[in-house]
C-alpha cells in the first residue's frame, strides 16, 4: 500500500484499521452483491465500499496478491 487520498479524519480511521502505508492489502472476499468488498490487512478483515477503496493507492506486489488499483 502506498498512500491514502482521503480527508485526514477518514485516512486516520483507515490507518487505525490497518491501512498503513507499507502494509500489504489482499482482496479476501466480496459481499453477495459485489460491493462492498472485504480486504485482508494487518491481520484483520475490513469491508470497504468501492468508492472508498478507490482512494487507497496500492502498488502491485505479485499477481496473486494484487488488488484493484487506482
Amino acid at each position, binding site marked *: 500500500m502506498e498512500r491514502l487520498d*482521503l480527508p485526514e*479524519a*477518514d485516512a*486516520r*480511521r*483507515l*490507518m*487505525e*484499521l*490497518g491501512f*498503513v*502505508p*507499507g502494509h500489504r492489502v489482499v482482496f*479476501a*472476499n*466480496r*459481499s*453477495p*452483491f*459485489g*460491493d*462492498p468488498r*472485504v480486504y*485482508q490487512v*494487518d*491481520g*484483520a*478483515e*475490513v*469491508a*470497504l*465500499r468501492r*468508492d*472508498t477503496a478507490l*482512494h487507497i493507492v496500492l502498488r502491485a506486489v505479485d499477481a496473486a496478491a494484487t488488488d484493484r488499483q487506482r
Partner: protein
Amino acid sequence: MSAAGCRDAPTVVADPSKRRLVALVGPPNCGKSTLFNHLTGMRQKVANYPGVTVEKRTGVARLPGGSEVELVDLPGVYSMAPQSEDERISHDVLLGKADGLRRPDGVVIILDSTNLGRHLAAAAPIIGLGMPVLVALNMADDLKQRGGSVDPVELSKRLGAPTALMSARTGEGIEPLVEFLEGSLGLPAPVELPVIQDVPQCRAWASEIGARAGYRAPAPPIWTRRFDRVFLHPVAGPLIFMAVVVAVFQTIFTAAVPLMDAVQEAVAISGGWIEQTMPESMLRSLLIEGVWGGVGSVVVFLPQILLLFLFIGVLEDSGYLARAALIADRTMARAGLQGKSFIPLLSAYACAVPAILAARTIENQRDRTATILIAPFMTCSARLPVYTLIIAAFIPERPVLGQVMGTRAATMIGLYVLGFVAALATAKLLKSSILKSRGTPFMLELPPYRLPTLRGLGLRLLDRAKVFLRRAGTIILGTTVVLWMLASVPLQDGAPPPIEDSFAGVLGRTIEPLVEPLGFNWKIGIGLITSLAAREVIVGTLGTIYGMEDDEESLQAALQRDLSFGGAVALLVFFAFAMQCMSTVAVVRRETAGWKWPALQFAYMTSVAWICAFLAKQLLPG
C-alpha cells in the same frame, strides 16, 4: 460461572469510597465486555455520563483475597485522538476530567492477542499516560490454536508494564490480572514510546516491540474464511440471511407460546386469588382491573421479548451480524445512507433510545441527524406486544411455506419489513432534500466467527428482563393506575360510573372523530393516547378498560368484537409508523439540541401513520 473462585471468598463489605477504581479500555472486538462480565458477573450498573449520552458501565469485582475493586468499562476505542464522543469520554475518564467519575487508580488495557501488531499500536498512547497499567493479551486460546505465540514476560519488559496472556471466555491465565487488581498498582517503568498522534509510527513501534517479544502472528482463521465463503456467497448468502430472519420470527411465535401461557396462567391465578381473599372495595378493584389487568397483560410478553434478544445476542456474539451488515449495505447505499448508520438502525430493533445514542459515532452531522430521524421507524421490542396481541386475535394460523412458516410469523416479518422500508424511504427523502451531504466512507471490521458463551448471553437476557420489568413497574403501572382512576370517576351515587361516562370515557369519545375513520372506537382511542407514554401501554390500557367492563371476556375476544379486520390491520399499520414514545422524543430533543427535529419527526411520523392506517382501513374488506 468460573470466576476464579470469586464467589466462595468471604465477602468484605468495604467502604465503597475506599474501593479502587480500575478502567478497562481497548479497541473494538478485543473481548473487553467478556472480561468485564467475567469479573463482575451480575454486579453491574449501567448509567450515562452526566451531560453526554455515552453509556457508563460500572461493576464491582470481588477478588479471591476478599477485597473488592470497582471497574469501569470504557467505550471501545481505536485511538486516544478524541474524534468521536465515545473516544472523548474514554480520554476524559483516563485523565480524570470526566464529570461523575473520579480518575481511575489503574488501567487494564485489553488487546486481542491474535491481532497484536495493530492492537499494540492502539495501546501505546494509553501506556503513555503514565498511570498504573496492565496489558491483558486476550484470546490466548485462539492464538495458540491457530499456531501463534508471544512471550508475555519479554513483552512486559518492553512495555514496562505487567502483562497477562489470558482468555476472558474461559478465565484461563487471568491470575496476573487478579494480582494486578489486588496488588499495589505499580507505575509503569519508563520506556520509549512513539509519538502518539502518528499512526504509522505507533504501528512501526508495535511491530518492533512484538518482534522482540517473539510474537508470531497466528494463521488466518481458516473457519472464518470457510464460513464467509458460504455466508457471503452471491446466491447462498442472501438466502441464508432470509432463512435466519424467518427462523427467528417463527421461533418467536411458536416457541414462546408455552412460556407465555405459563405467565398468563400465573397472572390469572394470582388475580383470582386476590379477588377471593380481599373484600369488595375500591382497592380490590384497583388491584385487579388496574394492576393485574393492565400490567399483567403486558408482562405476558416477557418470554417473547427475551427470546428475540436471545437471537440478537447469538447473532451478534457469533460475528454473523457484521456479515448481515455487509449484505444489507447495498440497500442502505441506495437510500443514501452510509454503513455507519447500520449499527444504530440495527439496535433500534431493540429500542430507538439506545439507537439514537449510538448515532453519536457518526461524525458527519447531517448523516447523524438523518439516522436519528429514521431510527424510530425500525420495529422496536415495545411494538412486539401490540403486534402479537392483534395478530393472534385476527390472523388465523395457516402454513405459508410448507411447514416452515405460518401466516402469523409472515405477518410479523411483513411488519418488520414495513418499518424498515419506511425508514429507508424517509432517509432517501431527507438525504435528497434537507440533509444532503457527502458521506464519510464505510469501514467495517469483520471479526472472526466465535461461539457465543452461555454466560454472555445469560447476562444480556438478565439485563433486558430488568429493563422490561422496570418499565412494567414504572411507566406501565403508573399510566394504568392513572387510567383506572380516570375511568372510575366521577362517582355516581357513590359507585363508579358506567365507563362511557367516566372522565376516561368522555376523553375517549372527544377524540373518537379523529380515530373513527381508521376503524377504531373510543376505547382504542384512549389506548392510542396512553401509548404515547410507551407503545406497549396500549395493551395494558385495553386490558384495564375491557376488564372494567367485563371480567370474564378475554382481551382477544373483546377486540375481535370491537374491531373489523380492516381496523385491526389499520391498528398494526398505525403502530408500525407512529412515534408513540415520549422517551424517544425526549432523547431526540437532547441529541439534536432543540425542539425543531423532534417536533418535525413526531408530526411526520404521526401523519404517515394516520394516512397509511386510513388507507388500510378503507381498502380492506370488513
